[in-house]
Every structure is written in C-alpha cells, then in structure tokens.
C-alpha cells in the first residue's frame, strides 16, 4: 500500500509545502463550525479574513470578484480555492476590465496579489487599476473632518481621513464581517498610488523570467507554464497560504491573476495550429494549478482568448477543468452594434459554468440573457430582455 501511504499522509518528505498542508488540511472546503460526526480533519476553525464571507448555501468561503453584480450571479462570490475563467471578448477590451476589478478588490481588502502576464509588465497593470468609489457614508465623515479643523492643517488632515476611508477595516478589533464585501470602482479614475504601494504584490512577467535559470523540473509543459507554476508554488509556500508557517501573521487570501493564458506569447501554439505539439500543455497547467489552489487560501482569475483556439475540443476540456467559466461577447464590429434591441448595451455576458462545490446543486441565476454596459464610471450587468417591453409606441 505504498502508493496509498504517500497519498494520504505525505510521510518522509520533510519540509515540503504539500506535506504540511495535508497535515493541517487548510482547504477552505470545510464546513464552518464543529462537525457532528467525528472527523480527523481537526483543522483550526477559520478565523474571519478580511474581504471574505461564508456562502449562505454551504459555508464555503467566498471572495468578491470586484463586481457585485457578478458576485450575485455566481451565487455570492468566487469560492476560495477555485478558478474563474473569463473567455475574452474578440478585441480584448472588456476582459482586462474584469481582470483589473478582481485585482483592485484585492488591494482594497488587503489581500496579497500575484499578477502574471506575458504581454504587460505587472507593475503597469497595477498602475491602471480603477479607483474605488467612496460611498455616501464615507463622504459625510470626510466633509465633517474638513469643517472641524483649521485651514492650514486641514489639507494634511483631509489626506489622512481620506486614506482611512479607503483602507480596509482590518485594524478594528470588532468582527471583520462588518467591512464591506464587494466594492464599486470608478473606471475613469486610477487607484491611488498609496494604496498600491501599501499592498503586497508579486509580479510574473514572462519575458523577464524566461531568461533566468530557475530550477526547471522535467515536465512536459511549455517552459513558460512550468516557470509560472513554480513561481506560484513558491509564493504559496513561502508566504504560508497553505498553512505551512503557522507562526506567521494573520491569515490572508492570495489573489492570482493570469492574463491571456494560452496566447502565443506564453509559448503555446493552440491558438495558431489545430493539432499542435503542445496540445496538452494548457490543460495540464490548469489541472496542476487547481491542485495548488485547492490546498491553499487562494483564488484565481484567468483570462483566455478562447475565440482564437482552433481546436474546439480543447475549449471543452478547459471548461471542464475550470470551476467558473464566464464568456464575454462584445458587440463591437458585429451586426448587433446597430441593432436597436441592444442599443443600451456593449455586449453579452454568458455564465457558462458554475461549480457544484460540496453540494449536489448550485445557485444558478434564473436570468440567462445577460448584457453588460460600461457607463462612464461603472460596469453594470443586467438581464437584457426587459428592454423588449419598453417600446414607447407599441400598440397591442
């Protein structure tokens, strides 16, 4: 039963991240609170982490995707330990927005970020994040502070007060669930520099990493994917997201964002050739990535140009290997751009797959025809069929 022993309790390999993780069993797929039947997973009760909340249905720990409308459609949010795959729209205009909302939500909540891209330097991506919107309550307090102080110092005091509005309320000793889950962002403004600098983030820019000689394990993935997997595994292990360093400071979530996965810039040829030599590289990568996520407190967003993938079978396999799949279809350049039915919207959103985690059923939304629009500030998602009933001159 040697193989079984290695699977169940990774004995004999000291200092490995996965060994300690399996002993601690920090997956978030634990029911909150003590279980009735005896279990040997006596893991620590999950302390409230900023920016997370338990799912109503099964106690699963959820994080916000950065778009409260999308959170609602996904049944409350993105479950920790899962992958959100965004199928990019044709000209890659709106999917970077969703990507940035996810990262911005991480900064506002104080989560650690890991940004991987083959096209853009992660530092530049972070500079372009949208600014969080102040809500009315914060605005009132902000105005009050201005009136209470004399003018010469008021400038400095305003800055401090304003900063405190935006930082997550982690310093409070009260229950963390009082802080908001899901924030709204202003797409026309940039995230303040102080917030970005105060956050903890790691960047993986492929052209830089591919030249350095990291220890490469023999594996049949393309070198870009192998390096990225090792990078992610390093961060998870060193910063203790898999529970391997119990004496570290309070627990946090790692938000991983991978942009344009599968595009030729990653060294993968599934977008160029129908039956390329590396046709299993992407699916293997996704499988191992999910294995890493399931044993750590992390959530991942991936944008993928699926409209470029030549082999339809690969798209089906990628969908089966991801947890949540959301497709974006923008109207730019299509006949729908001039169709009066769609005049208020910029594109359609398709929720292609929602996982059934720890459950037989999942929270599917009843509205299946969803459209999005990017107004001056906000990105909103609505069911679009109601516009059919709003013709002013319709006479029955």
């Amino acid at each position, binding site marked *: *039963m*040697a*193989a*079984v022993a*290695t*699977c*169940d309790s*990774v004995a004999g*390999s000291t200092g*490995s991240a*996965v060994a300690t993780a*399996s002993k601690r*069993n920090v*997956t978030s*797929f*634990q*029911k909150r609170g003590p*279980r009735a*039947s*005896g*279990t*040997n*997973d006596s893991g620590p009760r999950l302390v409230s982490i900023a920016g997370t909340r338990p799912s109503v249905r*099964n106690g699963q720990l959820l994080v916000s995707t950065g778009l409260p409308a999308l959170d609602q459609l996904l049944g409350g949010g993105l479950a920790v330990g899962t992958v959100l795959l965004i199928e990019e729209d044709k000209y890659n205009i709106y999917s970077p927005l969703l990507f940035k909302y996810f990262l911005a939500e991480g900064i506002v909540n104080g989560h650690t970020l890991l940004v991987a891209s083959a096209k853009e330097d992660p530092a530049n991506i972070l500079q372009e994040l949208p600014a969080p919107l102040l809500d009315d309550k914060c605005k009132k307090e902000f105005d009050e502070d201005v009136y209470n102080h004399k003018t010469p110092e008021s400038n400095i005091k305003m800055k401090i007060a304003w900063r405190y509005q935006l930082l997550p309320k982690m310093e409070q000793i009260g229950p963390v669930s009082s802080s908001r889950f899901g924030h709204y962002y202003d797409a026309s403004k940039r995230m303040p520099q102080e917030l970005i600098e105060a956050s903890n983030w790691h960047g993986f820019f492929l052209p830089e990493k591919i030249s350095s000689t990291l220890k490469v*394990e*023999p*594996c*049949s993935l393309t070198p870009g994917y192998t390096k990225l*997997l*090792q990078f992610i*595994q390093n961060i998870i292990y060193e910063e203790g997201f898999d529970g391997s360093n119990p004496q570290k400071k309070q627990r946090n979530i790692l938000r991983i964002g991978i942009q344009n996965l599968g595009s030729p810039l990653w060294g993968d040829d599934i977008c160029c050739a129908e039956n390329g030599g590396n046709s*299993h590289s992407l*699916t*293997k990568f996704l*499988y*191992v990535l*999910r*294995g*890493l996520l*399931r*044993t750590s407190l992390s959530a991942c967003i991936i944008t993928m140009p699926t409209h470029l993938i030549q082999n*339809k*079978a690969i*798209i*089906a*396999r990628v969908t*089966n*290997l991801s947890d949540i799949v959301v497709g974006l279809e923008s109207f730019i350049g299509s006949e729908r751009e001039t169709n009066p039915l769609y005049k208020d919207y910029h594109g359609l959103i398709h929720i292609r797959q929602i996982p*059934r*985690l*720890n*459950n*037989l*059923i999942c929270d*599917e939304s*009843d509205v*299946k025809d969803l459209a999005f629009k990017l107004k001056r500030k906000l990105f909103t998602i609505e069911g679009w069929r109601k516009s059919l009933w709003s013709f002013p001159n319709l006479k029955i």
Partner: protein
Amino acid sequence: MFVELNNLLNTTPDRAEQGKLTLLCDAKTDGSFLVHHFLSFYLKANCKVCFVALIQSFSHYSIVGQKLGVSLTMARERGQLVFLEGLKSAVDVVFQAQKEPQPLQFLREANAGNLKPLFEFVREALKPVDSGEARWTYPVLLVDDLSVLLSLGMGAVAVLDFIHYCRATVCWELKGNMVVLVHDSGDAEDEENDILLNGLSHQSHLILRAEGLATGFCRDVHGQLRILWRRPSQSTAQRDQSFTYQYKIQDKSVSFFAKGMSPAVL
C-alpha cells in the same frame, strides 16, 4: 444514495449484481450526482471501495456523502475506502521527484506513457487481505472522471487499456464492480473522447446518461436520465432495455419522474 434511483435500477445495497461495469456519462449537464449516488451506495453495501477522484478534493465528496448518510472519513479510517485524490497527488508528482512510482507518474513524462502505475495502485488497493475473515463483500472501483486523463496527455487507447486491465482484475478475477464517469463532449468534436466513450459503451453492462434538456435551462427539471441495460457478453438475442426519466436535484436527494410529468407542470 438516492432511493428513487435504486428503485429505477431495481437494486438495493443488499442484493446488487457483481462483476458489472457501469458507465456514467453526461452531456451538456453535470452528472456528478450519479457519482455521489454510487459512492454512498457501495459504502452502504459494505464493499471495499477504491475511489480514483481526479477532479475534486476529498472534502467535497465527504461533505456531500454526509448529506447522503455515509461518512467518508470513517470509511477511510477503517480501511473500507481507499481514496486517491488526483489534485493533491498531481501537485506532489510535479513539484517533487518521488523515489517510488506514483499513480500519476505520467505527469512528469514528456510523451504519452501508459497508466500502468495507476493500475498497480488500484490492484494493490483492492487485493483481498488474507486475514481469514471476510470483512467486505466485494471490491468496487470508482473513477471520477476518465475524461481528465485525456486532458492530461493520455491517449484514448491508453485509457481503454487501463480500463481493460481493471476490468479483468476487478470484475472478472475479484468479482467486483466498476463505475466510471466520462463526459460526452457532444458537438465539440473531441475525437479522443468519442473513441473512449464508444469503446466503454460497448463494454459496459449498464449505461446511465445524464443529459441537459434539449430546450435549455429549466428550474424544475434539471435534466434527463437515460438508463440502458446491456448484455455485452451474450448474443444480442434480446434487445437492450432502455428507459428515460427526467429528474430534479434537491439538497439531499434527486427526484425522478416520467417525461413531462414534473410536479411543477401537473
């Protein structure tokens, strides 16, 4: 296990047939509720179960199993359940070089190998213990799901070979049962998957096919289940029986009804 499904299949945990291969297949919907059903069914039937779970983690099955009345952790502790968690094992294999061959060793190899280490694992897990007393009734192999092996670089022929070896050992030699899940890709033109699905359909005794409704999403009817009994070894003197039911999945059970007879409609 779902009592209504047991009635439809005409079995109970006490008197289930042995030596059978059951194929679970889903098209345009999620057929994992069938896996949970068979897992709890065979655990209740006091069988020794080897579960090769390639797609989800142990706690997922454990939490659903509790809703269905079985405790996977207790089953694992007393040796009734041997659980291979594919995701965790894959991370071990890829990031650390292990000395002994792992069940998912093929992840480290550049070209498509074979599934021999996985078969060795299954054989080792289900071999009868010579302790003199028979604790478990018969062995069962459960695989969720086989299409993942194709995504990980295995060819359809390698997977069919693996199933063939397992069938020879588990079904014929040890008189146990096998249940495997394969996704039907439908119009995605996944040739390897079609080869695998067709090959398995010809070998299996019972095929349960969960399909999404042709008309799309419905709140009250989640899908349609086709049950097909086959006699692969005998001549086709008698026609294979086939039934179709529609189902709705609830929190702890699944209710089945004839087509068009959903309680929401009547």
